[in-house]
Every structure is written in C-alpha cells, then in structure tokens.
C-alpha cells in the first residue's frame, strides 16, 4: 500500500471506530432514561470484546487463506504471519476490518433494547461473530458469493442485511417488552449520534476502496449525496403524511440512506446515489411501520432501517452499477447497459445471507435462552435496566 493509501485507511479506521459510540448515542437517545446506559453498554461492549477476538482469530477465519471459498483457517491466528510492520498496509487493513466486525453486532443491539440480560448479550456477541458474521463475510469478500460476481462495496449484504435480519431473529426469540414503547428520552443525544455516524460513514464507505483513488472519491461523494437524499425523502414523506417533518425523521432518513449506499458506494455514480438514497428513505420510512402490523418488537427499528435499507441498496446495484465510470471490471447494472445477471447475483447473495443469518441467529438465541436465559427479570425491566444490570443510573444532580 502506498503511503497516501495508508493514511486514508488509517484515518478511515479511526472514523469507523468512532461510529460505534455514535451508534450508541443514536440508540441511547431513543431509549428511555432508565435504560440508556444498558443501551450504551451493549454498544461499547462490542468495541471491547470484538477487537480482541478479531485480532486473535476472527481475521484469520474471515480471510486467511485468501483462496478458500467458504471459511478461513488458523494461519493468521494472533496475526502470527506478521513478522515485520512492513509498509503498514496489511496492519491497516486488518484494523479497518476489525472496526467493521465490531460495529456489526452493535447494530443488533437497537432491536433487543430494553429487555435483554447483559450476560446473554456478552455471550451472544462472540458467538454471533464467529458463527454468523465471519462466514458471511468470507463468502461475500473473496468467497463463493463474491466470486460469482455479486457486489458489496462496504458491507450492505455482509453487514446491514445480515445484522438487520439477525435483529429480527433475535427479537422473535426474545419476545416483546413488558412496557409500552416511549418517546426518545433525549433527541439531542440522538442527533449527536447521527452527526457522528454520518461523519464516520465517510471512512466506512470511502475507506473501503483501501486506496486513495477515484473510487474512494466517488464513494465519498455517494455517501454525502445518499445520506442527504434519504433524509430529505424521509422528511418529505413525514410532511405529506403526518403533517410535520421531524428531527428523528431526518436522522432516520440519513441513516437509511447511508445504509443503502454502503454496498453500492464504489460502483455507482452521477445521479444514482440520489436515486438510491431517495428510494431507501421512502422505503424505510414505511418499513418501520411493519413491526406494528406484524407484531414483532424491534425496539429501535433495526429491521426497518438496516435490513430494508441494506437490501434496497444492494438490489439497486443491479440497476445502477457503472463499471465504465470506475474503469472497473465488475458487471454493469441494467440502467448502464448490463443484463439482469448482476441483479440476480445480488438477490442470490442477499438471499443466502438472509437465510444463514436468520437461522443461525435464531439458534444462537434459542440456545442462550435455554441455558443462561436471555430476558432480564420483570422488576429490572419495569424499574430500569441501568440500575439492575449495571448498578448505575444515567443522570444525577
């Protein structure tokens, strides 16, 4: 890796690390006062446990050897193949990927908010990392799904669709909260989280070029435009449908747009990010209402935003992929002279990820439920998880 590329990957890694606290504030602000610290803790826990797991074994299983199609091995156990720092490129890439591994389970925390035993979460994260995340990651990046031609620039399938559907499986096992949902306890905290998320997402998407080049620049531009367009679309829907545009709508739209552009960021250009953002903004704005109709208790709309947004973005690659612009060797989307092949591959890759993630997550949660239990006790849920599970409360005099 050249030194400019190294700088780009390092700063992008720092940005992605910053996203997990951002996500914690985004979720934590939406939660009740008495549960906010539990929400923050579920997120911060991911950046405590996952980096260590990733360095010890995760990276090895998820990547090395690069030729394997289904799963890596133990060759890079505790990164033992690294005998010198070299130009830093390999190290930077491992760190960058470690940040992704950390934030992905954190995404799920928003769904299970307000009722999960912290001990169960502490076990769920490593289990899910190795059983669900690592294989899907391998298949999509370098493995059999990727080799078939499906595209996932920065983790639409491997991260958002994956975490989004896992969130659904998790809440189906976990069950509904005992108390009614409440409005966000601190909207300013939600907006702080949103600001950090968008900021960090430039590293997430544009850093995924793993080089300082035109693809990184367009991925950056796409991250800018799709977040904006989706936020705009969401508040326009609110304005027309509910009478007034809201901050939470703007924030949710921004995140939906960023999710949707994630898989596409290095493959689309021109007006495409605005189109993808706008479609995702509208789709997710309606999708978050499904939970009421279908009756699952996805507390902070991980399914409606990450699963739906990720899927929308991933499938729209089949229409908007533009290899000419990037002078790249991937297939063209339907709007750019391609056949439906790419769209089919996108659907296939997502289908596989959905099935694997849903089934395995369901099994992990069932196993935890049957052994240590996954629900906090009723008293804790009624009087606040922060005190019951962490011996602390969020605000004092």
């Amino acid at each position, binding site marked *: 890796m050249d030194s400019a590329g190294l700088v780009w990957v390092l700063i992008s890694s720092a940005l992605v690390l910053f996203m997990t606290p951002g996500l914690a504030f985004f979720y934590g602000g939406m939660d009740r006062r008495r549960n906010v610290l539990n929400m923050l803790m579920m997120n911060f826990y991911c950046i405590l446990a996952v980096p260590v797991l990733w360095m010890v074994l995760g990276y090895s299983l998820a990547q090395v050897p690069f030729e394997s199609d289904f799963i890596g091995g133990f060759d890079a156990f505790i990164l033992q193949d690294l005998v010198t720092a070299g130009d830093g490129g390999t190290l930077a890439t491992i760190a960058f990927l470690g940040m992704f591994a950390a934030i992905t389970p954190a995404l799920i925390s928003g769904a299970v908010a307000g009722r999960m035993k912290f001990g169960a979460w502490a076990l769920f994260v490593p289990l899910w990392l190795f059983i669900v995340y690592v294989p899907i990651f391998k298949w999509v990046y370098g493995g059999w799904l990727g080799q078939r031609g499906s595209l996932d620039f920065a983790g639409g399938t491997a991260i958002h669709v994956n975490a989004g559907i896992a969130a659904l499986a998790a809440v189906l096992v976990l069950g509904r909260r005992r*108390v*009614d949902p409440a409005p966000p306890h601190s909207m300013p905290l939600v907006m702080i989280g949103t600001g950090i998320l968008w900021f960090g997402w430039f590293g997430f998407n544009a850093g995924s070029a793993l080089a300082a080049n035109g693809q990184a620049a367009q991925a950056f531009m796409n991250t800018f435009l799709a977040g904006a367009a989706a936020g705009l679309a969401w508040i326009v829907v609110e304005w027309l449908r509910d009478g007034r545009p809201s901050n939470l709508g703007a924030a949710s739209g921004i995140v939906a747009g960023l999710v949707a552009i994630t898989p596409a960021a290095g493959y689309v250009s021109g007006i495409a990010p605005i189109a993808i953002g706008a479609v995702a903004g509208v789709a997710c704005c309606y999708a978050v209402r499904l939970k009421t109709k279908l009756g699952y208790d996805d507390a902070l709309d991980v399914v409606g935003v990450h699963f739906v947004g990720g899927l929308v973005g991933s499938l729209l690659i089949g229409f908007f992929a533009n290899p000419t612009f990037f002078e790249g060797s991937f297939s063209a989307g339907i709007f750019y002279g391609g056949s439906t092949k790419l769209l089919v591959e996108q659907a296939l890759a997502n289908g596989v990820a959905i099935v694997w993630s849903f089934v395995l997550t369901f099994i992990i949660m069932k196993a935890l439920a049957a052994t240590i239990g996954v629900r906090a006790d009723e008293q804790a849920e*009624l*009087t606040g998880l922060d*005190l019951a599970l962490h*011996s*602390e*409360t969020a605000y004092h005099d």
Partner: protein
Amino acid sequence: MKLITAIIKPFKLDEVKDALKAANVTGITVTEVRGFGRQGGHVETYRGAEYKVDFIPKVRLEMVVEEAVVDRVVEVIVKSAGTGKIGDGKVWISDVSRVVRIRTGEEGRDAI
C-alpha cells in the same frame, strides 16, 4: 372540597391515570418526586465505590375533588397503584377551603 395527595411508583402512573379518568376525576397535577421510606434505597457503584441512594423515584399526584367522591377516588388509587410490594406509596387527604379556576374565575364545584 378535599385535596387528595398520592405517592405512587412511577411505572404505575399511566394505569392510575386511566383508572382515575374512568372514575371521572377531571384534573390531576403530577410531580416527579423522590421518596424515602420502608422500601429503603439502593446502592450504585462507580469505579468500585458504592453510593447509597436513599431516595428513590416516585410520582406524586394531587387532585382537588368534592368530598362526596373522596372515598371512591382513594379506592381507585389504592387498587390501580398497588403491586403488593413494598414502596407502593401513600395517599393522604386534607381540606381545601376554596378552589378557583383561573380561566373563568369560577369557584367551588364548578372550578374543578
């Protein structure tokens, strides 16, 4: 006119409010308070140091009602606020000699 003051558990507020509404209580004023009583407090831990929190969050309701309905209202509160566990709270009643509605200047029964 009587003033009924009730201290209840915060998560019971909605239930109590609905029960009072159903019992035709038309006005309630609610305050977030902290209570000290038999229930005892709890301990929070920060960096290994324990902080004894003696006061725990409660909600205080007050409503001015006509004498005739006092018993019924108290009963409704006791029923809807009770969990049977320590710390459920208290209700007490005191006299009110005059009530005025600010908007209209109406007094007494018309004011509540």
